[in-house]
């Protein structure tokens, strides 16, 4: 039994706050806000400290907490962080912290709102920190369920879909994905010989997994997580969910929750089943093209602001998938970095949309227009967000997408089951995706913010107080800081990714050695 205060604190503080909130009088909203702010600020500080304290050349997992939970089945509360985790923790704590600030506009059942929000946060932190398959799933579901109520109770209508429809769809999709993956996780648990069975990811990594097993079960686990990423065509829950959710929840949802899937693919798919990943990810490179281009095209045809950002998220997550599919340090680091960048960026987007939606009660572009006149601050932030999202330099999104694209350019995608090797094609699509992204984002900016001011919106109030401005400023600062000076964060991510990818590359080398003798001439012919 080892305990590291940092990893435990990051998990326990939101949990403790959740429990504390149960016993607060619902009328004391100021107090409730206070607790929520504190409970999100402490993890922010702790995750920052963890980042600072993380040794990029040290142990693979640091800040390890290991508390036996159900010893007879090898289950323990095992927490720890590598570089990838640190990036995700920073992202989560930032989004949580700012999310609490932007949800100040909520007046209905404040207490329940924060209980669920913090419960959600606990779950997300738990997933990122878990070094135990069981708790990975446990925390994941813990994050999904509060979402149902958060969207259903405090959400809003999403175009032709009611919020209830949206939230149900989201919850079912996410649970279906998770349960699907759970079967895979259990199979992973049982492939170990009797007596050595454990849910401990570190031990499983050390033991290694049979290659054939990996090839059979990797798709199961991957598909489970892919529904969360969300990979085309399993994505349709996501835009509707985004659109229906209240600000803070959209922020968390798009900013953090969608990253859980990719994180799961990395931590479990790649970490434990490197050969499976090596075998299958070629197909993913093709599918993610659909994400990028198709998501972008659908976003182009949308008029509801949140739908635009929602589909753009699925487009951006296509880049994450592409980065993962490269199976190289550059691409995967880029993907993780992009997870971080996209998380911050979408959080910003949804925070801003929520801010004006609270006043306009419409997000449809045709109703808006010229609002930058009335809301210069929010408008400026939105333009900055759009720039970041469109992949302009100076923001982390650009840096990370660049890494993904460069990484992907050199990658060869072998389609398992066929003798086809694809090169360049996904990258070309990804680069074209940048154009598509620009189109719909600029259109949204033009239609909502620019153009002649609409007298209908004369009464709109801009963000004026520190409390109102702070979350947006913080997110923009982080986005630009990491975009201009990615070094430190990227080093952290890289150290984590390198540890994971070493095994994948080794598996790939073995695979190539097995395959090459007979199929080498084929590859030549099929290239390009």
């Amino acid at each position: 039994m080892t305990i590291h205060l940092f990893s435990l604190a990051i998990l326990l503080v939101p949990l403790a706050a959740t429990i504390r909130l149960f016993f607060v009088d619902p009328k004391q909203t100021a107090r409730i806000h206070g607790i929520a702010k504190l409970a999100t600020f402490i993890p922010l500080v702790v995750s920052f400290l963890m980042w600072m304290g993380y040794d990029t050349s040290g142990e693979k997992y640091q800040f390890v907490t290991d508390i036996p939970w159900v010893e007879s089945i090898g289950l323990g509360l095992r927490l720890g962080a590598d570089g990838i985790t640190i990036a995700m923790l920073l992202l989560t704590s930032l989004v949580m912290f700012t999310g609490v600030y932007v949800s100040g506009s909520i007046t209905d059942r404040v207490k329940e709102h924060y209980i669920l929000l913090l419960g959600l946060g606990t779950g997300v932190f738990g997933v990122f920190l878990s070094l135990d398959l069981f708790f990975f799933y446990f925390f994941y579901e813990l994050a999904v369920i509060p979402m149902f109520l958060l969207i259903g109770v405090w959400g809003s209508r999403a175009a032709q879909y009611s919020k209830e429809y949206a939230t149900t769809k989201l919850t079912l999709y996410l649970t279906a994905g998770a349960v699907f993956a759970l079967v895979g996780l259990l199979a992973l648990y049982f492939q170990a010989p009797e007596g050595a069975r454990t849910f401990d990811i570190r031990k499983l990594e050390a033991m290694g997994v049979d290659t054939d097993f990996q090839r059979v079960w990797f798709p199961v686990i991957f598909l489970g997580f892919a529904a969360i990423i969300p990979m085309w065509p399993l994505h349709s829950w996501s835009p509707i969910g985004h659109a229906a959710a209240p600000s803070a929840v959209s922020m968390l949802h798009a900013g953090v929750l969608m990253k859980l899937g990719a994180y799961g693919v990395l931590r479990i798919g790649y970490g434990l089943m490197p050969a499976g990943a090596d075998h299958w990810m070629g197909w993913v490179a093709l599918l993610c093209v659909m994400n990028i281009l198709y998501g972008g095209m659908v976003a182009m045809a949308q008029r509801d602001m949140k739908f635009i950002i929602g589909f753009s998220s699925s487009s951006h997550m296509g880049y994450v998938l592409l980065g993962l599919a490269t199976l190289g340090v550059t691409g995967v680091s880029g993907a993780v970095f992009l997870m971080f960048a996209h998380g911050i960026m979408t959080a910003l987007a949804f925070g801003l949309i929520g801010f004006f939606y609270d006043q306009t009660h419409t997000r449809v572009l045709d109703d808006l227009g010229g609002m930058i006149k009335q809301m210069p601050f929010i408008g400026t932030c939105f333009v900055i967000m759009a720039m970041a999202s469109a992949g302009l330099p100076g923001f982390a999104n650009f840096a990370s997408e660049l890494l993904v694209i460069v990484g992907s350019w050199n990658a060869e995608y072998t389609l398992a089951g066929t003798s086809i090797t694809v090169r360049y094609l996904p990258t070309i699509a990804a680069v074209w995706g940048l154009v598509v992204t620009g189109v719909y984002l600029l259109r949204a900016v033009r239609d909502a913010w620019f153009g002649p001011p609409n007298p209908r919106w004369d009464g709109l109030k801009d963000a004026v107080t520190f409390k109102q401005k702070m979350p947006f400023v913080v997110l923009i600062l982080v986005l630009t800081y990491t975009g201009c000076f990615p070094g430190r964060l990227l080093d952290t991510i890289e150290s984590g990714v390198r540890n994971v990818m070493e095994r994948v590359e080794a598996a790939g080398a073995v695979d190539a050695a097995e395959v090459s003798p007979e199929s080498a001439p084929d590859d030549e012919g099929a290239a390009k």
Partner: protein
Amino acid sequence: MIEAMSAWNVGLALPEWILTATALVALFYDARSPADDKKESIKWVWFGLLAATACVVIEWMGMKTGEKAWAFRGHFGFDAFSALLKTLFGLTAMMVLSIADHWLKRVDRGHAEFHLLTIFATLGMFFVCSVEDFAGLFVALELITISFFCLTAFKRNDERAIEAGIKYVVLGAIASSFLLFGIAFLYGATGSLRLDALGGVAEAFAHGGEDAPLLNFGLLLVIIGLGFKIAAVPFQVWTPDVYEGAATPVTAFLSMGSKAAGVTLLMKVARACLGDGAAGLATAAPWIIFIVVIAAATILYGSLGAMFQTNIKRLLGYSSIGHAGYILMGFAAFDQAGFAAIVYYLMAYLFTVIAVFAVVVIVNGVIRSHRIEDYSGLARRSPLLGFVLTCGLLSLAGVPPFAGFFGKFLVFRALIAKAGALGDMGPDYAAASVSTYTLAFIGAAGVVISLYYYLMVVKRIYMDAPPEGSEEQPIVAPQRLKGLLYACLAGIFLLGMVMGPFMALAESAAAALVAVH
């Protein structure tokens, strides 16, 4: 061992005696005391239950690990398994009586009969945990069943209650006939009514490749008879009707007590079929596939049937079918891990179901309706009840951090272990292995479907506005039931988050069940 088995050792059945005495005293008390004051005063029966349960716990504490005590010349066994389940049954009965008190206050009649029948049923459940032969099994099961027949039709002025009773009686009697017919064949196959006599035949069948038609036929019918009790497809049809028609506390008792009794017996029979080598029928591919098919059908039926329900009790009836399916997944695993999973599942199920039904009783007391529609805005009218019901439903759905999740998790775990093990056993078991994996995925689908209808209720509770004019009308949980609700809530969370100690209990129970004596 032989000595132990031939001893009478009547004291071992002390909890049962306490219950019997309670029943008899209550019967006399009911007959003698004037009508008005026994309404309330019959509540002392609750303490009889408490005493019996406490007695079980004390006996259990006094036992060494892995020890099994015998009484009635080896026809009554007591080990960790039976102790744990008896405790569960005792707790169930006590909780049900607590709920029933509240409900009876409203109905205002039949207090004594309700308590008596509850005690009888509980007594049957206690015996079920300890019987070692088919005669006892059958009689104890019938004691439960007949008590439940009467309890179901307790509101005899209510057409629905009587209808539920009729359906239950007719189908229950048919099921009993099949069970008996099956026992007859097993008796023919083994030459004995003892459960453990099955093992030898089963092992011979599984390993020697010897054909055992009598065993198979008998076992099939026994499974059908018990499958009726736990509401497994295709013997589940009674469940929604009876759940809907019966009084709510009875439904609660049915869904936990009756089902758990069936499960207990199934576990005992299954264990017997494993034989001493603990492999027995667990290595018979057709049987595995048979259970897998039933489990899959049950899960799907329960999940699908509940989707369009508008009555919460009916919904819970379907949900109960679904849970039977998940429990059967544990049987498909057919080993110690599976049994431990089932035991844990039952523990989790107990607190969850009682919590849910307690809320249903309280809410019904105010709004006089079981329509899900009328639960709209419950969280506004009573945050506590809304919260408890939500936790309960989500626990039923199998979502962390609630108890139901870990139960389901263990079942899945056991099942996939079995699937993997079957896969390693060679080509003869390929079909069994594949079907077992398929069951895991069907189970996963079932979780999603069932989550849907539970969430629809949660949606009512939290998202919908209370019906016109009722915003001002809060629903208050009575103080005594509040305690019960908190206890259930604690159970739901503890079993869902701090699994270690409970898992140890479940595992010791399963170990005791599987142990060779």
